[in-house]
């Protein structure tokens, strides 16, 4: 089963991730999964994907279960605010003892330890390390890559990726055993053979607008075709599945055998010395090698275009992952696009390596390239498009990044402006000529409801065409339900996914394997930083103690409000103000991130800065961003989740995070990415700064340590700052008095329910559209026109409404005189009461009198 739950998914709250609608229902998904049992892979998963549609009625989508868990954790360790141990790690606490395994004779020059399960430890300082590193990147997943010792893990997808770039099982095993200090265990060897045996035998090709499963050997195709799921996706519903496999003429299939003879002397004997070994490794990881094409007859099976994903997934589950390659040079059906990189464009070495992996055998492989933010993903994408030279569809996350892509395309390549067009809400033009580039957003393409006439026409046009190349920006968002439609709707030859962080807290990352393809390349962050391609960043976690008032409410309040309470902690606001002041005075441009829109607005208004969130209109957004880039007066902006990805602000050099989405490692890395491309990164001694403000002793501490996981594995170190020196002497500190803090607490407690969501709920509730309703104004400094905020309704006790909430009256030192007079009064009262003890009787009498009088009157 390909969707084997990662260890992380054993933590329910650990699953939530901030990328899609689905993350609001991680509990539901796990429930589905449990219901389906371990075996029900496809069906259970499918039902989980459809779940969002059916349960769309629930408006409040906060992850309650996660909160509850976190709360329980916090309750168990109130003073620590942090859970003792990761659950996943408790299982692993037993020691794996491999000390009985002997070492290879010349182990001191070999850089690897490899265990039974495919975990690999690499000495990064060994002489052979750099070569070994290249090799490992090809065959294994990097687990952690700090400075001296790296860890990798061989997994099935990673092996498939290795196969897809042209490595062979035998070579993998051979090189591994040459590099390992301990003899390779037969168990691992068997596993590698097992995992790779069926890979690459099946190809998925698009030919004249029709999809085929293709294989040179009917033996491999037969089990697939006879599988009920795949058979149902076939175009011709014939009784005998075997008949659908059509033999093809050798002529039709025989693409020129381009491959030169494979490198010779590839298998030297065991006993050979170092020099030869280097050659072997070099040869195996060699990327310029070409594959041999066999001239044998191919067998094909046509499948329906819209069932492609099902077929891919099914084939992968059956251990026959389908290879998707595009022989673009010999594609004569589709018109060529005249596009070339401008001569002045320089491609960095790692970008070249990653592209070489994609075009290793002269054809385009579908896959994913992982580069840190700011490392030039865009250029990689553009270069790929220039290599394929066919009609290209680019999908990215927002209209802002559409504009940026278009501008980058024009900047780096010689494509003419009429050949490139954007498809967004505001722009709907078509390119002229037979081939061109279309740039759009995921929500735009995946939209299912009614469309405007011109949009509909455009979609028709996009769907009907055959695309040479589909470029997916920020591909980690693709697994989301609404985004996967983007992939299924189009007829595409080659797909390239670009992302910085291939981690998600749910296990959806595995889906990318069959949605797009294997991971082709993953760069080492630390190396790039060392070489000056991305900025070096000082990371710090600032611990802000909760003020006693806030902490008391925090302990008392129900889960959802807690988020707001620790986000709005006055000490945090002060710390934020202090850091902004400090960095602005240094000449830094500061971005402040907050997931919580309420906190975002409150901070921004209090500190007098501009802000952008889902409710900010497009024009205003662009205006603020450009002011931020060019206006020396505007040095700080507040961004909500909308700014996590794809907003390209090379001016920013300092980043402050005040509230975040639970334990999302990806978000942390994406946000860090906002400052990695800092323009000034090549200045001597330049550092970018990344601060994460955390309220002490709250659940934030726990999530914060979770979030940092990815970056720490990349070699970043988070420094803990417990005290900011000089903050108490800073002039104009916000919330200086207890009274102002208490009134802030008041405001926070009275804020509406929606305020507590860490999400940009405007975006969520309106399905990506901008908020139409009244929105609060930007602070004075920015240009927006002020609007009256809508009336808000809330419940509160009477004394709160009357303003008496903080007052109490207790008389302690009572004077004896008063005491006496009070006693007097009390005794008098008693007397009165004693008299009135007969009161009811009197009244009764009077009433009866009265009644009698009336009767009399009536009688008269």
């Amino acid at each position, binding site marked *: 089963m390909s969707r084997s739950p990662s260890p992380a998914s054993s933590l329910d709250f650990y699953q939530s991730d901030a990328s899609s609608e689905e993350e609001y229902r991680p509990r539901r998904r796990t429930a589905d999964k449990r219901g389906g049992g371990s075996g029900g892979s496809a069906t259970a998963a499918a039902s989980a994907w459809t779940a969002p549609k059916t349960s769309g009625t629930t408006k409040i989508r906060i992850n309650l279960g996660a909160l509850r868990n976190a709360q329980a954790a916090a309750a168990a360790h109130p003073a620590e605010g942090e859970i003792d141990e990761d659950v996943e790690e408790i299982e692993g606490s037993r020691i794996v003892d491999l000390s009985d395994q002997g070492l290879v004779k010349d182990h001191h020059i070999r850089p690897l330890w490899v265990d039974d399960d495919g975990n690999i430890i690499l000495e990064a*300082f060994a002489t052979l390390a750099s070569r070994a590193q290249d090799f490992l990147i090809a065959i294994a997943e990097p687990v952690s890559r700090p400075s001296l010792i790296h860890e990798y893990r061989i997994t099935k997808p990673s092996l498939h990726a290795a196969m897809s770039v042209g490595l062979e099982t035998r070579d993998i095993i051979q090189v591994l055993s040459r590099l390992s*200090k301990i003899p390779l265990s037969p168990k691992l060897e068997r596993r590698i053979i097992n995992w790779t045996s069926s890979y690459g035998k099946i190809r998925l090709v698009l030919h004249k607008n029709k999809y085929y499963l293709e294989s040179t050997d009917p033996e491999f195709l037969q089990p697939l075709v006879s599988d009920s799921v795949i058979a149902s996706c076939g175009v011709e519903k014939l009784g005998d599945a075997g008949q659908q496999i059509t033999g093809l003429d050798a002529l039709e299939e025989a693409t020129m055998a381009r491959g030169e003879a494979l490198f010779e002397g590839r298998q030297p004997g065991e006993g050979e010395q170092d020099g030869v070994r280097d050659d072997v490794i070099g040869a195996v990881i060699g990327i310029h090698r070409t594959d041999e094409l066999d001239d044998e007859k191919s067998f094909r099976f046509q499948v329906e275009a819209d069932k492609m994903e099902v077929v891919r997934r099914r084939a992968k589950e059956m251990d026959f992952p389908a290879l998707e390659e595009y022989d673009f040079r010999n594609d004569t059906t589709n018109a060529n696009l005249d596009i070339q990189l401008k001569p002045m464009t320089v491609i960095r070495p790692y970008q070249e390596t990653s592209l070489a992996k994609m075009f290793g055998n002269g054809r385009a492989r579908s896959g994913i390239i992982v580069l840190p933010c700011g490392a030039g993903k865009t250029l990689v994408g553009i270069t790929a498009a220039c290599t394929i030279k066919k009609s290209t569809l680019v999908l990215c996350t927002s209209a802002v990044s559409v504009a940026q892509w278009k501008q980058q395309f024009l900047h780096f390549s010689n494509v003419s402006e009429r050949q490139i067009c954007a498809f967004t809400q505001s722009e709907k033009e078509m390119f002229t000529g037979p081939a061109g580039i279309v740039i759009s957003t995921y929500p735009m393409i995946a939209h299912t409801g009614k469309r405007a006439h011109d949009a509909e026409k455009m979609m028709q046009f996009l769907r009907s065409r055959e695309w040479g190349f589909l470029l997916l920006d920020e591909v980690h968002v693709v697994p989301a339900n609404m985004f996967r439609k983007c992939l299924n709707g189009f007829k595409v030859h080659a797909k390239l996914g670009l992302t910085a962080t291939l981690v998600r807290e749910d296990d959806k990352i595995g889906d990318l394997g069959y949605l797009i393809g294997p991971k082709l390349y993953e760069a080492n962050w630390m190396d790039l930083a060392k070489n000056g391609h991305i900025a070096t960043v000082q990371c710090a976690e600032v611990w802000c103690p909760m003020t006693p008032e806030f902490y008391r409410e925090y302990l008392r309040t129900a889960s959802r409000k807690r988020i707001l309470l620790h986000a709005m902690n006055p000490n945090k606001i002060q710390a934020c103000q202090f850091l902004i002041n400090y960095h602005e005075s240094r000449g830094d441009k500061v971005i402040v991130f907050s997931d919580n829109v309420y906190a975002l607005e409150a901070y921004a208004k209090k500190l007098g800065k501009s802000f952008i969130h889902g409710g900010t209109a497009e024009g205003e957004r662009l205006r603020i961003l450009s002011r931020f880039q060019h206006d020396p007066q505007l040095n700080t902006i507040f961004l909500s989740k909308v700014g996590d990805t794809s907003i390209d602000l090379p001016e920013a050099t300092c980043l402050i995070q005040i509230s975040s989405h639970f334990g999302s490692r990806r978000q942390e890395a994406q946000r860090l990415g906002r400052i990695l491309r800092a323009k000034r990164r090549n200045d001597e001694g330049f550092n970018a700064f990344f601060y994460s403000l955390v309220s002490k002793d709250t659940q934030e501490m726990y999530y914060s340590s979770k979030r940092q996981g990815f970056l720490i594995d990349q070699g970043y170190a988070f420094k803990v700052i*417990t005290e900011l020196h000089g903050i108490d002497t800073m002039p104009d500190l916000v919330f200086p008095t207890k009274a102002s803090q208490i009134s802030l607490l008041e405001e926070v407690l009275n804020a509406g329910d929606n305020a507590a969501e860490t999400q940009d709920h405007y975006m969520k509730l309106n399905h990506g559209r901008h908020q139409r309703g009244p929105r609060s104004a930007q602070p004075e400094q920015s240009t927006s026109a002020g609007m009256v905020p809508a009336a808000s309704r809330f419940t509160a006790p009477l004394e709160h409404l009357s303003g008496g909430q903080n007052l109490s009256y207790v008389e302690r030192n009572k004077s004896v005189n008063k005491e006496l007079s009070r006693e007097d009064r009390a005794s008098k009262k008693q007397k009165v009461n004693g008299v009135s003890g007969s009161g009811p009787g009197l009244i009764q009498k009077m009433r009866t009198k009265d009644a009698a009088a009336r009767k009399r009157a009536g009688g008269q």
Partner: protein
Amino acid sequence: MVQPSFSHPRKPNAEEVISPTAPLDAFLDNQHQSFFEELYKSEAVCLCILRFLPPICRHVVLHTLWSYNPLRTVDLKALCQIDVSAPLNLAEDIVRSAIDRKIFHPIQHKKGKMEWPMNDTFKKGLRNALTGLGKSNSFGVPYVGEDGIDAPDPEELIQYGEDTWESILKYMVSSGLSSSIATVKPKPQVLRLLHASGLMADNNDMSGRRPNLDRLTITSKGFQFLLEDRQTQLWQILMCYLALKEADSERSAETLSVFFSLGCMQLGDSYSASGSFPLAHSALDDLESYGFIYRRPVVNGVPSDQFFPTHLATSLCSGNTITSASQSADEKRFLVLETNYKIYAYTSNELEIAILNLFVDIRIRYRNLVVGKLDRKNVKSAMEKGISAYQIISYLASHAHPQMYNSPPPLLHPTIVDQLHLWDKERNRLKHEDAVMFEFHSKELFDDTEAEARRYDGVLVSVPNSKLLFIDPSIKDGIRDFVMGQQKQLRGA
């Protein structure tokens, strides 16, 4: 503009270097003149003590050794290029450690000159040591015997010494761990010493007087001991041994001179026990059980007169800075600590692994590598055992792999060091303090009392609103009297 200087959780000046002979120094600092007179009869002692002195001081001693005149302050100042008019302390600080070791007598005023006369016994001893004139045999008497054939070579001796010493440490570790490592139970006298020194204790024996030697478990002091440098460990054990001997009313000066003599011996040579240490047979037996010396097995009830000092003994006096010859620098530096809290230890040594296991969550063990993670749970459980963050840090730093030195300093990443301190801090966020509460009804009285208590610096908490005063219990009586007096006064008035 206010510059933020981000404070470190660690205290400044905490990372001073502790000399491995600290236990010895502490012991010697508390001895009297007569003890040293006795000690300096042995030439070996004189030489070793000289070696332990700081370089400049050593130089001064050698400078005045052959002179008949006492060391004059003027000369010293001239020698060290200190201005003549400089205060005396400056000059005295230079020879302070020599004075502490009673090599120089305290300063004397003679005819307006100030001088430090040298201790005659020491002078004679050191002169003899340097010229080879002495007759005390304190450098050991070589064994002259028939069987020089199967003498163990230095490697075997080192192995023997390592094994014996580590088996003791291993026994200590295993007593504190749930996981079992194969250990050999040390001899009873070793256990008694471990108990007497407080490194191990019998938990069932509250009085500590009648321990059951089979049930000893390691104490927090013992854990700290394990993390120490080898040299420090040795001296610590030896000093405990001395203390134990002293309790048995044996003369410690003699035993101490045995240690120094051993320290001057040559690895691989054999010596005669009766010739070298005619008075300290029992000490030799004990030292054998710690692995300081090697002796042939007892034949016919007569212990062999021949003995071989191991590297543990011969490296005892090799000075502060030089690491012992046996543990080559590389062997000792085997730890790689990464910023993701992973620890990679190039070791197969059971003892090292057991020690690491005290505060590291060990995941995988290969033949020559142990992979673990420094995590909160394990570090905190280590802290419960009494190991401090400083000890963990100094252990990690002193065992850091040569590759770690390639990155720019500091050696250990500050984040990790900070985190260890934060974990340490986490344990004592709440402080317990005894207090006495006074409740007042009159604001006036409250204010007066508070002022009074502040005068004694005994106010813990004062709550003016509800007129509550919490004071230190030590000044309780005084404050009570004060309050009574005030009350009386108020009433009287």
